[in-house]
């Protein structure tokens, strides 16, 4: 029994370490957050043998909308990391972006090195609160089948306190027969980011674009010339395909890992692209400018020095 308590305590510590939503943006800035309720995900690991169900373990994750979680399954030959990014949509449904990574020990080489079979798949699921997510780590074939059932429940508990503080995610292990085999983690990080991008010509802003990005989703931003007389940018608009790949927090700053492509659209509204910078990456501090010198890659017709300036910060939706 003491081992179970230690196990539960260990699982509780991790989400608590990850719960802070970052200094400034954790507060309720808009009235929209005041009515938000916490969402509970009931996770049941079930074995089915000849049509008979046997619940092996049950757990719950509860947190404000946007709480993400991992389910890790690990045995002697098989390892699965299932990551779920959840978002509550306006129509009271859930958007869940699932990414499954599996690794199966296949055998050993002549040099006795382990050989693995790896698989990565991603899916975006849309579900209501009367539905559930079924995760089958080993597929659906065979008489013995293992399934992980994830059932979302909208609770009556407020997601944010009257002070604006976010109520942290919680994990409860109700029944644990799979100690050491299944691990669950939860965290709450921003999923929306306000991005301002500007093209500078000799230090002067000549075009800009702004948008709101979702974590791990690419979005194309087209620069609008500030001077309508800029014939070149009007004829061949500059565009940025940007992804906020990761958000990390530490005591000094919130950081976003980004990657992007910068290109000309050959003609407005058409798909033709002339690449200027492909698969560029960087790490941006929240709210701080991040600059890229484009001199070697883009000089336009004027032959002047051009820079790309990005400013990214978590956004409250």
């Amino acid at each position, binding site marked *: 029994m003491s081992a179970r308590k230690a196990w539960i305590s260990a699982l509780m510590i991790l989400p608590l370490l990850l719960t802070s939503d970052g200094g400034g943006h954790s507060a309720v800035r808009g009235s929209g957050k005041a009515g938000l309720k916490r969402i509970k995900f009931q996770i049941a690991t079930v074995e089915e043998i000849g049509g008979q169900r046997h619940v092996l373990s049950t757990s719950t994750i509860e947190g404000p909308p946007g709480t993400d979680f991992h389910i890790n399954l690990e045995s002697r030959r098989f390892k699965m990391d299932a990551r779920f990014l959840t978002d509550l949509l306006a129509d009271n449904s859930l958007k869940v972006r699932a990414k499954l990574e599996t690794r199966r020990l296949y*055998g050993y080489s002549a040099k006795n090195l382990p050989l693995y079979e790896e698989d990565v798949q991603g899916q975006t699921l849309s579900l209501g609160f009367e*539905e559930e997510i079924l995760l089958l780590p080993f597929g*659906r074939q065979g008489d*013995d089948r293992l399934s992980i059932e994830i059932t979302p429940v909208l609770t009556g508990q407020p997601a944010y306190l009257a002070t604006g503080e976010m109520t942290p995610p919680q994990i409860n292990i109700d029944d644990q027969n799979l100690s050491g085999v299944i691990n669950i983690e939860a965290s709450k990080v921003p999923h929306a980011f306000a991005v301002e991008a500007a093209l500078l010509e000799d230090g002067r802003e000549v075009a800009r674009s702004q948008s709101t990005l979702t974590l791990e989703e690419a979005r194309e931003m087209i620069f609008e010339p500030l001077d309508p007389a800029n014939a070149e940018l009007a004829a061949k608009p500059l565009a940025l395909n940007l992804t906020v790949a990761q958000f990390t927090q530490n005591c000094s700053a919130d950081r976003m890992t980004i990657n992007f492509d910068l290109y000309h659209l050959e003609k407005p509204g058409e798909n033709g692209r002339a690449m200027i910078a492909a698969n560029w990456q960087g790490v941006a501090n929240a709210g701080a400018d991040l600059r890229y010198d484009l001199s070697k890659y883009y000089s336009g017709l004027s032959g002047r020095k051009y820079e790309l300036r990005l400013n990214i910060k978590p956004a409250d939706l």
Partner: protein
Amino acid sequence: MSCNLTEKVSLLIDGELAQDEAEQIKQHMASCSICNRANEDFLSLRQQIKSYEFAPDREARRQALARILASEPVSLWKKKLALPVPLFAFVMLLMMALAGWAIFLRVAPQPTPAGLRPVDQVDDAIRAQTPQPGFDLSRFDHGQRAEIYTARRTPQQ
């Protein structure tokens, strides 16, 4: 009416008698009307055969050749092949050996490529080396890909 020397007359005409015997037969023919008559018949027949002119009918020859060439072909199933018994026995033994080899290949486990050892063969070693969790998931693993989807809630919940 017959004479037992009539056959000798034929041999005399063919020149197959010795000189002494030929003289005796000639003397006999002078007194034996039967043999004398037989001698005349033989000579007459020989003369007829010699005087016969072979005049082949070109049309008849063409028809005969056509009949030979147009003879009905023997089907494959009716064709017969003659083989010496030792050769036949060798062929049969060879076919039986090939059949046995094919069955062996089908039944025998397939070798793994380039020294690869499937995990089943080292499973016991792994079990011995690694600490065992309380729950073994391997019985669920049939090599299938993981799946995820949404569904209506099950009644159990």
